[in-house]
């Protein structure tokens, strides 16, 4: 919404500048978007008078003028045919930038005569799209007066209105708040009732669901035509297009008082009844309806020239006994009954349309008119009565004519209820120390009726429902600047920090992954449905009804597809070596408990060539990263289980980490080529997905002391074993039984070689294990070491059928 300072001054007696108004609005809660000053670019241009104009000696179409300007009498060459002695026009000095032609003026001879400036056309000043000749201004203007002022150009203040304050959608509403804020005095309401000369011949019917109250009046004998300059200028200054006086009056009042109105050409109305009712069509005919509903195709051609289907949710104005739609109530009038310059009898509508119904009508039709915007937010319910009088006053003034009585049908919704208000609550809720007299002064200035402990909001403040709203009124007018900064009172804090274990793990996971060389990505929680299906998701319950794009339609079951896609996109830009991770939500369903948190990592190993050529299988590098992460998160020792991963993993190169037989903490491995192909990604890619929520909490919560450390003074010793096992036995399965052979003495067992081939029987492989033995109480004798070795071999044989290689 826009307005100008001069318009504001119609309602507010003030000496404030535009900047002061903007500041006061901002601090009262009206967010100024920007101030658009069409005169700013014309600062250098001033009024001048041509004293003499003679033919240019060397050019037929040019004239040499003597011009009185703010810089004295100057000789200026001008090509306009209307450059004549006595003309008051606009002068641009040397050095001025002419916005309409995009040039900066230089003093240079035009066909041998030096021009000391320029006389400008409306187009050159950008005050008109097209123009002929230089500006012709009224004679009375003083030489040297700024052109912007002479042209009536004014800064327009463009601001945003929050939905609670529809009264701010009219200039008077703003004036009232600014007056309360101390910027001036609100002028008395100029609207006076106009007596009717005859009974209103039009009957009005309303459906309360559409329209609560409808005031109408006929004015006959009007002479419509273009509005006077002041009205046109006022509308143009806020970005409206003048149409004709009758229509312009309704637009003016819409902006002046947030009071939308409509004018019908009486001659075009069919019958003597105007009706506000619900639409009778059904915008979307249902396929299974046995027979078409009678009014399925009710339609309206609106003033914008477009045809709209009228459904049963919409508010419609109809004539011809309610049969012919002639308008979308509170939204837009119909083409068939619009006022033109030929109109001589006008029927004036000043109604109160239901906000929700109007919002709905606007939403379905896609129309966002000035009227719809205001009715949807709530017009002052008392306004139909004075709105029709204000419009009558203006129409009589501009078009003449004779008004009928006002006919009012229906009743406005109940006015806001009185609120019991203890003034001490202002200080309790806001902290502001404001005395009761000042509180009452503020409320009264804003239009509230104050009567002892009871405060009644004005009809236009339906947003004020309770005492907290009253505190807001007082606080914002008193100024949020004066709120006393008050430290929060001390609060008992958990001694171990405020984060829960899970919150801490999310944070630790992030830092652990970054420390291991992975870059953190944040990817959308929604993705293409086909991608979700690739990873076990895509349930219809998790497909958005109104996605912003088809590739962002479905809540993700996993972040893997997003990370694969991210790596592929980076590769396509020439950066194929990707190590990415994300800590974020995945969705199994739409219930709160279906959301789970994963640490997902993706490795697309494309290390640059290196002179030292030392490359292992990157899958084990990924496994190392996964184990390091789990250790950082405090996960217990986990079992590696192969062959049970979900279908998006490489069947031979993937595994799960489990806690017991049921709880899967992580899946990791190479991704299935089929999945990569579907995502248009070049493989191989490796990944893991850790379910953060599945990692158990440590058994001893809150115990910071670590177990006592018993360091043995005795040298540890190592023994190597080479075992023969079946080729398909997981080598890792050897370690647990070996360690179990003597938990006190065996500190560690490590696989250091796996071999199949010459010297190893077919179907078998040799697994070499180094066992670290840590004596605790005394040095071991040879016999004791031998006995321990025998126990290790027996345990390995018992567990996986391993034989010591001879």
């Amino acid at each position, binding site marked *: 919404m826009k307005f100008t300072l001069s318009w504001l001054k119609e309602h507010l007696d003030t000496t404030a500048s535009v900047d002061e108004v903007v500041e006061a609005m901002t601090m009262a809660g009206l967010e100024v978007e920007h101030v658009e000053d069409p005169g700013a670019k014309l600062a250098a241009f001033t009024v001048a008078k041509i004293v003499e104009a003679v033919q240019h000696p060397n050019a037929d179409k040019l004239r040499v003028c003597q011009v009185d300007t703010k810089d004295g009498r100057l000789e200026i060459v001008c090509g306009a045919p209307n450059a004549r002695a006595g003309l008051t026009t606009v002068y641009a000095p040397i050095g001025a930038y002419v916005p309409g032609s995009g040039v900066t003026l230089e003093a240079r001879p035009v066909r041998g005569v030096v021009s000391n400036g320029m006389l400008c056309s409306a187009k050159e000043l950008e005050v008109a799209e097209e123009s002929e000749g230089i500006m012709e201004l009224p004679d009375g203007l003083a030489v040297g007066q700024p052109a912007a002022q002479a042209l009536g150009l004014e800064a327009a203040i463009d601001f945003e209105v929050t939905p609670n304050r529809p009264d701010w959608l009219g200039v008077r509403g703003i004036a009232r708040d600014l007056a309360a804020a101390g910027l001036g005095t609100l002028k008395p309401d100029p609207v006076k009732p106009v007596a009717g000369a005859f009974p209103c011949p039009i009957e009005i019917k309303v459906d309360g669901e559409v329209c609560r109250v409808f005031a109408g009046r006929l004015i006959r004998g009007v002479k419509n035509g273009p509005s006077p300059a002041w009205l046109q200028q006022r509308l143009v200054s806020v970005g409206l297009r003048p149409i004709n006086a009758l229509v312009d009056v309704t637009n003016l009042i819409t902006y002046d008082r947030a009071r939308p109105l409509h004018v019908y050409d009486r001659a075009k109305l069919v019958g003597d009844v105007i009706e506000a009712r619900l639409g009778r069509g059904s915008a979307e005919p249902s396929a299974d309806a046995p027979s078409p509903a009678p009014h399925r195709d009710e339609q309206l051609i609106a003033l914008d020239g477009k045809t709209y289907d009228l459904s049963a949710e919409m508010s419609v104005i109809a004539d011809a006994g309610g049969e012919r739609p002639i308008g979308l109530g509170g939204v837009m009038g119909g083409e068939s009954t619009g006022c033109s310059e030929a109109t001589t009898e006008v029927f004036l509508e000043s109604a109160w349309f239901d906000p929700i119904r109007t919002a709905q009508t606007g939403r379905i039709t896609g129309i966002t008119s000035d009227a719809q915007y205001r009715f949807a937010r709530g017009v002052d319910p008392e306004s139909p009565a004075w709105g029709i009088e204000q419009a009558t006053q203006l129409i009589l003034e501009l078009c003449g004519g004779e008004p009928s009585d006002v006919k009012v049908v229906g009743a406005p919704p109940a006015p806001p209820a009185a609120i019991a208000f203890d003034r001490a609550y202002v200080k309790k809720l806001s902290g502001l120390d404001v005395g009761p007299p000042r509180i009452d002064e503020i409320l009264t200035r804003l239009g509230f009726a104050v009567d002892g402990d009871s405060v009644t909001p004005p009809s236009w403040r339906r947003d004020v429902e309770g005492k907290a709203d009253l505190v807001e009124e007082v606080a914002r007018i008193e100024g949020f600047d004066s*709120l006393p900064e008050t430290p*929060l009172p001390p609060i008992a804090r958990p001694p171990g920090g405020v984060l829960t274990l899970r919150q801490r793990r999310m944070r630790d996971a992030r830092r652990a992954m970054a420390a291991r060389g992975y870059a953190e*990505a944040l990817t959308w929680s929604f993705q293409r449905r086909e991608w979700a299906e690739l990873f076990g998701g895509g349930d219809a319950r998790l497909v958005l009804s109104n996605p912003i794009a088809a590739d962002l339609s479905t809540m993700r079951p996993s972040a893997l597809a997003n990370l694969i896609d991210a790596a592929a996109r*980076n590769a396509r830009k020439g950066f194929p070596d990707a*190590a990415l991770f994300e800590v974020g939500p995945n969705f199994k369903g739409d219930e709160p408990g279906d959301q789970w948190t994963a640490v997902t990592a993706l490795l697309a190993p494309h290390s640059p060539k290196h002179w030292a050529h030392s490359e292992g299988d990157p899958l084990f590098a990924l496994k190392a990263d996964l184990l390091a992460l789990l250790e950082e998160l405090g996960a217990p020792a986990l079992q590696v289980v192969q062959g049970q991963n979900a279908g998006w993993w490489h069947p031979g190169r993937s595994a799960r980490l489990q806690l017991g037989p049921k709880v899967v903490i992580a899946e990791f491995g190479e991704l299935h080529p089929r999945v990569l192909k579907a995502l248009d990604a070049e493989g191989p890619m490796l990944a893991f997905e850790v379910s953060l929520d599945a990692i158990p909490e440590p058994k001893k919560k809150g115990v910071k002391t670590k177990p006592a450390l018993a360091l043995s003074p005795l040298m540890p010793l190592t023994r190597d074993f080479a075992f023969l096992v079946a080729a398909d036995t997981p080598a890792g399965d050897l370690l647990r039984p070996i360690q179990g052979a003597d938990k006190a003495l065996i500190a560690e067992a490590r696989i250091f070689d796996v071999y199949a081939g010459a010297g190893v029987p077919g179907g078998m492989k040799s697994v070499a294990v180094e066992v670290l033995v840590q004596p605790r109480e005394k040095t071991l004798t040879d016999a004791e070491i031998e006995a321990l070795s025998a126990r290790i071999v027996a345990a390995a044989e018992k567990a996986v059928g391993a034989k010591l290689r001879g």
Partner: protein
Amino acid sequence: MTDYAKIAQDLDQRIAGAADLAALEAIRVEALGKTGSISELLKSLGRMSPDERRVEGPQINGLRDGVATHIARRKAALEAAELDAKLASEHVDLTLPPPYERKGRVHPTMQVLDEMIAVFADLGFALAEGPDIEDDFHNFTALNFPPKHPAREMHDTFWLPEDEKGERKLLRTHTSPVQIRTMQQGQNRTLPGWIAQGQAPPIRVIVPGRTYRSDSDATHTPMFHQLEGLVIDRDIHMGHLKWTLDQFIARYFETPSVETRFRPHHFPFTEPSAEMDVRCDRSGGDVKIGQGDDWMEIVGCGMVHPNVLRNCGLDPDEWQGFAFGFGVDRLGSLKYGMPDLRDMFAADLRWLQHYGFSAFQAPNPATGLS
């Protein structure tokens, strides 16, 4: 008479000329070995008369000591030369690159969240969380958005399909539903433990998380991050709110001089409502915080609406407090200078390297936030 000086001179010459440790050892054995020439001379002392011995003894011993010293010196020199040669042969070209390592990064938005959490934790705020898929009650109704009110329209909500009961879930448009989950008394306790459960006042929590609105341009993304704050007690008023936000802004931007402006606004779930602006300069194309003559809106806030308290089973005459909501991504872009918010979610490796943070830049009261 044996010419000891001649012997010493000859040996010294040979010692000096010994090319390596083996040659030197041969000279040592020849002179000082069991049957070496000087050992033999020493043995001859036993056969001399005392007078002879008095004269010859010191000379032979002197000879032996001199030769031994010279051999030791030469040996040290040869060993040093040999080590030098060995080390010289071990030369490597250290202009060659070390093994390849990827540089890990923490996403700037997550860094900013950690920073915000650090500041608010210090002010006594705990963390509460809630689900991304919400119901209408928690996201709108309980937060005092009347049904069909235009304020709902302004949220550009993403909706999930209608269920059997004709109800539709939605993607939360703000983190405020967690206010309800935190305040609501006597609610369903079957939810997973990470989701905020109703707690009795006093309450002091922040709520970080993903939020969603159907909007996309340089300053809006369909998914973004918010950090909500909620304080409920008996006497918490707007002055506390203003202090808290000012504290946060000074600490977050790590400067004492960020000028702020507190002005009225409207949100359905707060009353009175406000927005806070920070002083900024937009003249150079990008935004500089803390200087210039412009303002930048940075947080929406207000006193929790009495209806919201009532909807959670709290008596607004007994309990009151404030709530605020920051846009985390935008706060990050203001501090660290990422101009286009869409890039935050594009996972471009070069962008992550450039704007991301090292694992070790965790916010710390001793070293600052980053």
